[in-house]
């Protein structure tokens, strides 16, 4: 199915599975010549223990992946000062050192070259002692980390400021801080034949259906890929409806959002090295929900949400409806308007559809340019481009003035729903073509097609339109509007299969 599966490397590392040799020199030779060959960031720190029978030791680690003070203070110093009993040999000696000398909290014994290689790559220092066929892996991970900051892609006015960072452990703890309950479970999986990236599945075991958790785990396990550099890889590999442009897996940079989704019965997937948590199942309504809806007063939140739906309608449909109206149904435009549109199009050489596509293209180019360029220049580009080009195009009679408004409104409305904005471009194009061919009825046929596509989609067994395809009052309380919290007594039924009670009946300060 995916071509990279075929290029999977199945030639094993020559020495990877071999056991360590008692001789330190041989071990070092193999490490330098094979496992860790041609890697100049690896540090081999030679030293000796004290006492009558000083032993030769080497501490191997990758530079900048470890905490150097920690190693000096809790491994090197006690080792150098220690004098292990003379009679200890081999494995016994290693066990003694691990138990009595090394002061680190995370240490384990390693026996194979391959293991040593993996550990060192992950920021673990390995201590080898002459005469022992085992090494001690000391957990001294310490690489440069980003602080927990406010996520740039999902900023809020009201709400917590924390965002995920690239460290899996930190991320899990951020979610756990929100959901400090023994029901909160995590499960680890490792993905990537090269990277062995750690992936965590987070859920609440009294809310989420275990089938869902199993399904997620099964799909992640089935991934065979060399590397996972971001959660985006996993997102694309485990999603439903891969040919549909609509997202079927959600992602967020915010622990509060992840926690809220888990509380509704979803499963969150965190990937080491990625500040984006994935949440499944993902429904269409979620694209229109923003965490601030829940933090603000409910009427305000509902209004903003309504605006988001309307904007999406505007951004996908305005050009198509405009085209349909001016090229097929001028009778439907109010008389004054139709006269002025007609007048403003008098000297424009192109038909409406060419104008729409031309201007739409220019808009997308400006946007892309603005995104990729460094921020200050980007802004200048978009402003200059938009104002100068628009104005000049109208006075040069290349496009008509109403078209500038249509394209402008379309573009601006698109920014309201970042999650669906990329797809909006595709939908818009489809609608524009259909409207250019059959007028409003073409647009309607396009809408029917899109709704059909959406109705046929599922995300992890849950219909994609779930909350929109029901007329049960409880299930539509959190869709187009958000009713107040005291009204949302139950969790959504299509997700939370076990404990549906969100609100105890008598709690909540002012139930009506």
């Amino acid at each position, binding site marked *: 199915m995916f071509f990279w599966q075929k290029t999977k490397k199945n030639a094993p590392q020559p020495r990877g599975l071999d056991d360590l040799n008692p001789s330190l020199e041989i071990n070092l030779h193999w490490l330098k010549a094979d496992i860790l060959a041609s890697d100049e960031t690896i540090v081999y720190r030679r030293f000796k223990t004290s006492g009558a029978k000083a032993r030769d030791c080497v501490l191997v680690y990758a530079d900048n992946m470890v905490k150097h003070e920690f190693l000096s203070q809790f491994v090197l110093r006690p080792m150098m000062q220690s004098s292990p009993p003379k009679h200890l040999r081999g494995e016994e000696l290693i066990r003694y050192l691990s138990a009595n000398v090394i002061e680190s909290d995370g240490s384990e014994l390693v026996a194979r070259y391959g293991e040593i290689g993996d550990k060192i790559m992950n920021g673990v220092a390995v201590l080898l002692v002459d005469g022992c066929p085992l090494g001690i892996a000391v957990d001294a991970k310490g690489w440069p980390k980003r602080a927990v900051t406010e996520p740039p892609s999902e900023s809020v006015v009201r709400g917590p400021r924390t965002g995920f960072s690239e460290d899996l452990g930190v991320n899990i703890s951020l979610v756990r801080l929100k959901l400090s309950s023994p029901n909160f479970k995590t499960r680890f999986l490792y993905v990537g034949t090269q990277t062995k990236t750690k992936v965590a599945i987070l859920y609440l075991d009294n809310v989420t259906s275990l089938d869902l958790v199993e399904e997620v785990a099964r799909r992640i396990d089935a991934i065979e890929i060399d590397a996972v550099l971001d959660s985006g890889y996993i997102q694309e590999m485990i999603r439903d409806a891969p040919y549909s442009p609509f997202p079927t897996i959600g992602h967020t940079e915010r622990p509060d959002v992840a926690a809220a989704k888990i509380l509704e019965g979803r499963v969150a997937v965190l990937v080491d090295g990625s500040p984006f948590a994935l949440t499944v199942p993902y429904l269409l309504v979620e694209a229109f929900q923003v965490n601030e809806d829940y933090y603000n007063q409910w009427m305000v939140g509902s209004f903003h949400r309504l605006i988001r739906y309307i904007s999406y309608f505007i951004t996908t449909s305005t050009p198509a409806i405009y085209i349909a109206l001016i090229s097929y149904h001028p009778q439907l435009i109010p008389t004054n308007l139709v006269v002025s549109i007609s007048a403003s199009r008098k000297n424009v050489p192109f038909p409406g559809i060419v104008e729409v596509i031309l201007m739409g293209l220019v808009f997308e180019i400006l946007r892309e340019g603005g995104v990729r360029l460094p921020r200050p220049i980007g802004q200048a580009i978009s402003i200059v481009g938009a104002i100068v080009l628009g104005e000049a195009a109208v006075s040069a009679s290349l496009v008509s003035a109403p078209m500038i408004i249509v394209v402008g409104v379309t573009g601006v409305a698109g920014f309201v729903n970042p999650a669906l904005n990329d797809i909006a471009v595709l939908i818009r194009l489809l609608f524009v073509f259909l409207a250019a061919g059959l007028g409003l*009825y073409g647009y309607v046929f396009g809408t029917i097609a899109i709704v059909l596509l959406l109705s046929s989609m599922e995300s992890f067994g849950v219909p994609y339109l779930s909350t929109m395809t029901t007329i049960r009052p409880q299930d539509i309380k959190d869709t187009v509007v958000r009713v107040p919290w005291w009204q949302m007594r139950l969790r959504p039924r299509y997700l939370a299969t076990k404990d549906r009670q969100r609100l105890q009946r008598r709690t909540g300060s002012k139930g009506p």
Partner: protein
Amino acid sequence: MREHVPDDQGMILVLLFVVGNTLVFGLGGVAGPDIWLAFLTATVMALPMILLMARVRSLMQGAALYSGLEQVFGKWPSRGLALVYALYAWRLSCFVVSDVSNFVQAIALPNTPKVVVASILALLMLWAAKEGVEVLARFAVVMSKVVFAVLLVTFILLLSVANPAEFLPVMYDGAKPVFLGAFQLLDFPFLEVVVLFWVFDCFSSKRSPFKVFVPGFLSAALILLVMTSTSLAVVGADRYSVFYFPIWTAVSRINVSTMRLEAIVGVTFAIGSFLKMAVCLLAASRCVTYAFGFSDYRFVVTPLALAVIPGSQWLITTLMEVEKSAIKTYPTSATIYQVVLPVVFWVVAEIRVAKARHQGKGG
């Protein structure tokens, strides 16, 4: 693979199916000012048939359609029945496609060949029918919200120009026009619900056929009654039957400043009709495959849908014939499909089920 439609979605499916392509046509025009009486009469007359259908489905004890049919009627009779209904459903689907393509041509696109609209519709319904009844039901619920919103707005606006005196005098020409109107309504659209018998695969409980069919049908009847009567009160009882599309005409008289609303009604009509034709196609495919003993129906959808394109152009060619088919129709075949066969099979089913129960007790 069992396809299971939740009761509420099923109800909306029934509702939209009935309302579907009916919305713009001048139904029950013969009844004149007594149109509301015709609607009530037709509803009362249709209700036993709807109950009967629900009852037969309920006798199947929640079994899936195919196995349930064999269990209740026996293998060969039910297959024969399926073949007969395949023809009916397919023809109905052709009619609806032709309604829409004629409507679109008359209202908006006079120079566009009807085949083009019919082909696009056929393609869309092919897709929809292949996705199955679950997806169709979801589609129905999503779209129903648009349809309801449009209907509500147009209804309120129509009220402002409606003249209630148009309903007077009551029964000036006696009960005959009322009954004539009611018979028309029974045939199209009320009893076309028989098609839906073949569409639902299985129900969640013994009672849910009733929960799906009865409220769905009743609310559809109510919506049609309200919309049709209101537009009659706008257009005028004397002019109502003159127009091909009275509701559309009525809406075109609303002036909300300078906004023109009739396009929205046309759009609603297209959506409802689309659902209806897709459901009919689905039913036709299921009947055909069942008649030939296949459990999967999806593979015959494409040829049937492609047959609808010429079918819709051939069976009905002009707008004038659309009216004929919508209002005068084919009373004989309608009676057979909509009344005679269902009644016969209901009786058979009752007898067989009772017998089986008796034997069960005896054994």
